[in-house]
C-alpha cells in the first residue's frame, strides 16, 4: 500500500511571495517522516503541495515535481492525487452535518461506491485502524459533535484511511488536542506506518524524535537538514539546526 514519495526542487508561491525554495527530499515507504521547524517555515505549505491542495488557494502556485511510485503527481488529475495522498488537518474538521458513519463513508461515496456492505465493511475497518471503533461502534449514526476533540481527530484519520491512500499526511494533528489525546494520535502513527507512508508535521520536537524514522528541518522556506532523528538531534551538521534545537530561534 505505502509507496515512497519523492520531491524534486519544489518551490511554492502565494502571489509574488515565495514560500518554499527548491526543496528536494524522499519520504520512504512504510516509514514516518517528520517535518519540524518554527511557525512560518513553510511546513504546511510543503505538505499541501504533496496532495495538490496548495493550488486550490487563490493566487497560489508551485514549481518542481512530486513523484509517487514513479508517477509525477503534477501530471495527474488532482482529484486522483488526493485519493492517493490522504490528509489530516491541524484542527479536527469532521463534516458537522453528517453522522460518524457518514463522515468515514464520505470518501467512499465520492469514489462512486454504492454497495452498502462494502461501505460498512470499509467504515468498520478504517475505524479499527484509527482505534476509534470500540468507542463509537454503538453510536455510528449519531452526530459527530458528541465526540471529544481527540475522538474527532481520530475520526478524521479514519475518514482519510477509508479510501486506502498510499500516503497519509498529518499536519500537526495533535496541536489542538489535550496531552492524552495527543499521545493516542502518536501511538496511532506508529501502528499505521506498517501500512502507509506517513508524513507528520509537528512543532513538538520530542514527538518528532519519538516517532520519526526520518526528520527534516525547515527554516524560512528552506529544507535545512534531514536525517535520522538520532543523527539530526544529537549531531546536527548544519549550524542553523543546532541553533534551532538549542532554542536560539524559532
Amino acid at each position, binding site marked *: 500500500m505505502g509507496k515512497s514519495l519523492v520531491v524534486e526542487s519544489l518551490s511554492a508561491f502565494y502571489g509574488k511571495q515565495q514560500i518554499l525554495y527548491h526543496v528536494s527530499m524522499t519520504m520512504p515507504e512504510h516509514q514516518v517522516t517528520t517535518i519540524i521547524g518554527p511557525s512560518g517555515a513553510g511546513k504546511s505549505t510543503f505538505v499541501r503541495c504533496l496532495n495538490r491542495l496548495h493550488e486550490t488557494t487563490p493566487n497560489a502556485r508551485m514549481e518542481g515535481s512530486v513523484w509517487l511510485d514513479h508517477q509525477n503527481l503534477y501530471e495527474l488529475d488532482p482529484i486522483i492525487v488526493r485519493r492517493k495522498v490522504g490528509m489530516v488537518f491541524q484542527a479536527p474538521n469532521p463534516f*458537522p452535518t453528517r453522522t460518524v458513519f457518514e463522515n468515514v463513508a464520505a470518501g467512499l461515496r465520492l469514489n462512486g461506491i454504492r454497495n452498502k456492505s462494502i461501505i460498512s465493511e470499509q467504515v468498520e475497518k478504517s475505524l479499527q485502524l484509527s482505534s476509534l471503533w470500540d468507542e463509537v461502534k454503538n453510536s455510528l449514526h449519531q452526530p459527530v459533535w458528541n465526540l471529544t476533540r481527540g475522538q474527532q481527530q481520530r475520526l478524521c484519520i479514519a475518514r482519510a484511511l477509508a479510501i486506502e491512500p498510499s500516503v497519509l499526511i498529518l499536519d500537526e494533528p495533535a496541536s489542538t488536542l489535550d496531552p492524552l489525546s495527543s499521545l493516542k494520535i502518536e501511538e496511532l502513527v506508529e501502528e499505521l506506518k506498517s501500512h502507509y507512508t506517513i508524513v507528520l508535521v509537528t512543532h513538538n520536537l520530542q514527538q518528532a524524535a519519538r516517532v520519526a524514522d526520518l526528520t527534516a528541518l525547515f527554516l524560512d522556506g528552506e529544507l535545512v537538514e534531514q536525517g535520522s532523528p538520532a543523527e539530526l538531534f544529537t549531531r546536527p551538521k548544519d549550524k542553523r539546526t543546532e541553533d534551532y534545537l538549542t532554542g536560539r530561534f524559532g
Partner: protein
Amino acid sequence: MNNMRKHDSDRLFAGTLFLFAVLLILLGLIMVSVMISGSWKSITAFDFSFLSGQIWNPLRHSYGALPFLYGTFVSSLIGLILSTVVGVGTAILLTQFGHIKYVKIATILLDALAAIPSVVYGLWGLFVLVPWLRNTGEPLLKTELGAIPFFNGQIWGVGLLAAGLILGIMMLPTIITVSRKLLDNVPQDLQDGAIALGATRTEKVRMVVLPYSRVGILGAVLLSFGRALGEAIAVTLVIGNSPTISTSLFEPGDSLASVLANQFLEASTHLYLSSLYEIGLVLLIVAVLFHTASKLLIWRVSGRARIL
C-alpha cells in the same frame, strides 16, 4: 457632588431612552387598535366569512377576501421558488467558481439592484415583462406544459405569473447577498477536508458548503418571502387587479397589499372602507404570523444542527 451629577445625568439619559421604547410599543398598539376599530363594522358584518368569501364586489356590497389571500400567496410563492433557485445558484457561482475580479463587479451591480425602488420594477414589469409574457413566454409555457392546469388558461400577460416573476426578481438581490455572505463564512478547513478526500468543487458544495449554510439560507429565503407578501406597488401594476381565484397562473388576480393600494381612495361606503381596513388587518396578521413562524423554524432547525 460631581459624582452625584453624573449619576443624575445617567438616570435622565436612561429615562429618555426608556420613554422612546415605551413610545414605540405604544405606537404599535395604537396602529393595531386603529386597524381593529377601522375594520370593526366589517368584522361584525361578515365574521369569518370575510376570509372564506370568494366574491369581492363593492357594488353589490359583497366583501370576501379569499381571492386576495390566494393571489398574495401564489404570487409570493412563485417569486420564492424563482429567487431561491436562481439566487442561491448565483451565490454558489460567485463564491465557489467566480474569478475575484468578476465577483467584485457582480457585487456592485447586485447592490445597485437592491436600491431600485419597487415602482420602477413594477413599471419595467408592465412595459417589458408583461408584453413578453403575452407574446412569447406564456404561449411557450402553454404549448410545452399545457397538460399542467397551472399553465393552461387564457393568456393576458398581466396576472399571477407576471406578479410572481416581478416579486422573484425583487427578492433576488437580498437572497444573493445574504447567501453569498453565508457561503463565504463556511470554514476553509471544512472545505479543505472535502477537497483532500478527492471531492470536486461541485461535490464539495454538496457535501460541505450547502449543508453548513442551509439554515441561514432558509432564513434569508423566509425573510424575503415575508417582504414579498407585503409588496404593493410593483404587484399592483402587473397582477391584473381582478378579485378572482383561478388555477391558471396566466389569469389576472389580486393581492392584499395591491387591493389596498388600488381601492382605498375610491371606497365610497362605510362598509367598503371598513372591509379594506380588515384587509389591512389580515395582511398585518399574516405578516406577523409568518415572521414569527419563520423565526421559530430557524430556531428549531438551527437548534438541531447546532449551526449558526
